[in-house]
C-alpha cells in the first residue's frame, strides 16, 4: 500500500513554489544527456513537456497514437486561456486567479498546486506569444482579453474560437524544432499498452506500433503520462475517438492511484443523440446561453406531440412553456453554472418532457434575442456556431429553436500526483488531462 505524501513545500502559500525551485536539486548538464525520458501523449501538456525537457538537454522519446503530434485533442478547446496578467488593470492578481480556481473546483483542489498554476499562468502567456501564437489584439497592438465563466475580471486570452488549436500548434512547433535538432525521437502511430517497472520504479513502456501491429519495448529513466482524460469511459462524450484512456488505466493497474474519478463535467449544451450509430457528441459553445432561453413544454402531452412530430416548438403557446432555469434559479436564469443547467435538463427529460424522439433533449430558443436585437446582431454574435449546428442537424436555429442535451465533456479526476507531479509509482509522472 503506497503512502500518500503530497510533498508540499514549506512556507507560506505564496512562497512555496519559489522555495521549491530554489532548493530543488540540479542535474549536471553532462548527466542530463545520459537521462532518457519517455513522454506519452503530445497534447498541450505532453508536447510542452517533451520540448522543454529536450531544451534542457535530456534525451526524450515522445509517443502519440495519431499520425502526427499536432492532432492531440487539446486542439479542440475553443474558449481561451486564463492568466493573471492584470493587463486591464481591473484588480486581477495571482491570488485572485488562485481563489477563483479553487472556488471553481469546489474547494477540493490542492492549494499549493493551484497557487503555482496561477503564478505560472503569466509566464505561459509570455511563452505562447513568443512562440507566435496569434492571440487576439486590440487596435493599439496589445493583447486583448475577455471575461469568461462569470469571472469579474477580464483575464482570458483567446485566438478566435480556436485557442486550443493555436496553443497546441505553438507547442507542436517547439516539439518539431527539438525533433529536427535530434533531441526528441518522435514515435507517432504508437499506442502505449503497458508501463514497465523495475524494482518498483517506472523504467519504460510497451507500445503497440499501429502500423505493423508489433509490440515494442522502450526504456526511460522516467515516464511521463500526458495522455488525456477518461471522458470516453462513458459510451458517448465530446472527446476525440482515440482518447481512450488506456495509458492512464494501465498505470492504475500498475499501482498508480486514481483521485476524484467522480469529477466529470457534464456540459449542458451539446447536440442530442440522434441514433445508435452515433460515434461522438458535439459541443455547442456555452456562450449560446447568453442569449438563448432554455425550455420544455409544461405538459407531457405537448412534449409527446413534439416528439412524434405532430407539433413543433412554435405551436406551443408562451404560457404553455416551462423556462425551467429561469423559474428555478431566477437570479442566474439561463446562465446558471454548467452542472446545475445539466441536472435541470435531465430532470425535465426524466419527467417525460424531452422534445427529441429519444426523449433526451430540450430547446434552446433564440426567438426573444432575435426580437430584441434583430437577426443580424444574433447572427454576428454566434457567427461560426449557427452554421455548425445547421450542418450537423439540418435545422436553422434562427428559425426554429436549437435542441440540446448535456454530455460528458471533460474530467477533472485522474491519476493522483504529488507536488512534483509524480504518481504513487516511483518514476511515473503525470501531466495535464489524466491527472487528478
Amino acid at each position, binding site marked *: 500500500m503506497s503512502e500518500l505524501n503530497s510533498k508540499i513545500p514549506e512556507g507560506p502559500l505564496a512562497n512555496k513554489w519559489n522555495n521549491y525551485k530554489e532548493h530543488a536539486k540540479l542535474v549536471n548538464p553532462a548527466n542530463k544527456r545520459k537521462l532518457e525520458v519517455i513522454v506519452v501523449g503530445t497534447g498541450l501538456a505532453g508536447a510542452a513537456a517533451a*520540448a522543454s525537457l529536450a531544451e534542457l538537454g535530456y534525451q526524450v522519446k515522445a509517443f502519440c497514437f495519431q499520425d502526427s503530434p499536432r492532432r492531440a485533442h487539446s486542439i479542440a478547446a475553443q474558449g481561451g486561456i486564463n492568466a493573471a496578467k492584470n493587463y486591464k488593470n481591473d484588480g486581477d492578481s495571482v491570488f485572485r486567479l488562485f481563489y477563483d480556481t479553487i472556488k471553481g473546483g469546489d474547494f477540493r483542489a490542492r492549494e499549493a498546486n493551484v497557487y503555482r498554476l496561477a503564478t505560472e499562468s503569466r509566464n505561459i502567456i509570455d511563452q505562447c506569444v*513568443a512562440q507566435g501564437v496569434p492571440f487576439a489584439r486590440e487596435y493599439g497592438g496589445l493583447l486583448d482579453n475577455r471575461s469568461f465563466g462569470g469571472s469579474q475580471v477580464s483575464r482570458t486570452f483567446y485566438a478566435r474560437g480556436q485557442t486550443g488549436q493555436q496553443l497546441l500548434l505553438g507547442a507542436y512547433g517547439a516539439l518539431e524544432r527539438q525533433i529536427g535538432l535530434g533531441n526528441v525521437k518522435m514515435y507517432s502511430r504508437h499506442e502505449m499498452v503497458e508501463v514497465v517497472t523495475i524494482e518498483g520504479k517506472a523504467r519504460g513502456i510497451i507500445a503497440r506500433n499501429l502500423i505493423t501491429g508489433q509490440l515494442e519495448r522502450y526504456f526511460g529513466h522516467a515516464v511521463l503520462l500526458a495522455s488525456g482524460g477518461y471522458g470516453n469511459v462513458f459510451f458517448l462524450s465530446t472527446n476525440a475517438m482515440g482518447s481512450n484512456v488506456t495509458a492512464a488505466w494501465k498505470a492504475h493497474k500498475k499501482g498508480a492511484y486514481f483521485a476524484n474519478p467522480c469529477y466529470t463535467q457534464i456540459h449542458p449544451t451539446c447536440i442530442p443523440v440522434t441514433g445508435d450509430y452515433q460515434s461522438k457528441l458535439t459541443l455547442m459553445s456555452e456562450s449560446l446561453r447568453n442569449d438563448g432561453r432554455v425550455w420544455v413544454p409544461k405538459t407531457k402531452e405537448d412534449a409527446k406531440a413534439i416528439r412524434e412530430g405532430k407539433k413543433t416548438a412554435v405551436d406551443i403557446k408562451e404560457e404553455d412553456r416551462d423556462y425551467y432555469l429561469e423559474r428555478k434559479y431566477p437570479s442566474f436564469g439561463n446562465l446558471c453554472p454548467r452542472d446545475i443547467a445539466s441536472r435541470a435538463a435531465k430532470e425535465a427529460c426524466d419527467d417525460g418532457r424531452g422534445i427529441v424522439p429519444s426523449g433526451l433533449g430540450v430547446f434552446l430558443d433564440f426567438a426573444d434575442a432575435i426580437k430584441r436585437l434583430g437577426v443580424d446582431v444574433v447572427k454576428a454574435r454566434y457567427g461560426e456556431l449557427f452554421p455548425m449546428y445547421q450542418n450537423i442537424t439540418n435545422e436553422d436555429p434562427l428559425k426554429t429553436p436549437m435542441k440540446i442535451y448535456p454530455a460528458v465533456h471533460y474530467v477533472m479526476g485522474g491519476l493522483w500526483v504529488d507536488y512534483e507531479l509524480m504518481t504513487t509509482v516511483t518514476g511515473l509522472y503525470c501531466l495535464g488531462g489524466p491527472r487528478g
Partner: protein
Amino acid sequence: MKFNLKVWRQKNAKAQGKLVDYTIDNINADMSFLEMVDVLNDNLTRKGEDPIAFDHDCREGICGMCSMYISGRAHGPHHAATTCQLYMRSFKDGDTIYVEPFRAGAFPIIKDLVTDRSAFDRIIAKGGFVSVNTGQAQDANNLPVDKADAEKAMDAAACIGCGACVAACPNSAAMLFVSAKISQLALLPQGGPERNNRAINMVNQMDEEGFGNCTNIGACEAECPKEIKLTNIARMNREYLVASLINE
C-alpha cells in the same frame, strides 16, 4: 437510404490496391460520412472480413486527421468542410460514392484510406516555429502586433495540416500548407529574426519530400477546409525570393 460504395482497398504500402464494391442500406440522413463507414466496417467485421482502415480522431473538423477523397473531391462535395463534417443528407438515395485516399507521391498509402503525411511534420521541423526555449520569453505585451497583421496571421494559422490541398492539386504541390505557416510567422514580429532561414529551409524540405510545383491552378484553395488563401503562396514566394537574394 441506400448507397453503392466503391472503396479503395490496399493491404499495405507495397500491395496493389483496387476499388472494391460495397452496398450499404438503412443509412440515416443525419449520419456523418464517417459514421456510415463505421456501420459498413461493423458489417464487414461481422462477416469476418477486414474492416476499411481510415484516419480520424476529433470528428469535429479541427484535428486534420480525417482524409478521404470522396467522388473526386478532397473531403467530399462541400466547400470549407472536413470529411468528418460531411453528412449523408448531402447525397441522394441510391448514389454511387467513390472513396479513395488522399493521393500524392509524398503521401504514400499505408493501408486502404490511410496515408503517411509525415512529410508535413518534417517540413515544420525545418522552421515552422520560433526558436524560443521555455522560460526565455519576455513579457507578452512588450511586443505589440498590428491588429490587421494579427488577424491575417490568424487566418493563416487556422490550417489543420490535413493535406487536402496536396490531394486536390494536379501537381501534388504543398504550397498552400507550407505558405500558411511561413505567412503566419512572417506577419508577426516574433517570426522576424529567423524569417530568411525559415523560408529557405522549409521550401527546400518541401522539394526534398517530393511535392510538386505550383502552376497557379488554385484547386488547393478551393478544397481547403479552413479557407486558407492563395495570397499566402504569393507571400511565401516573396519571402523565399528575398531570402535567396540575401543569402547569395
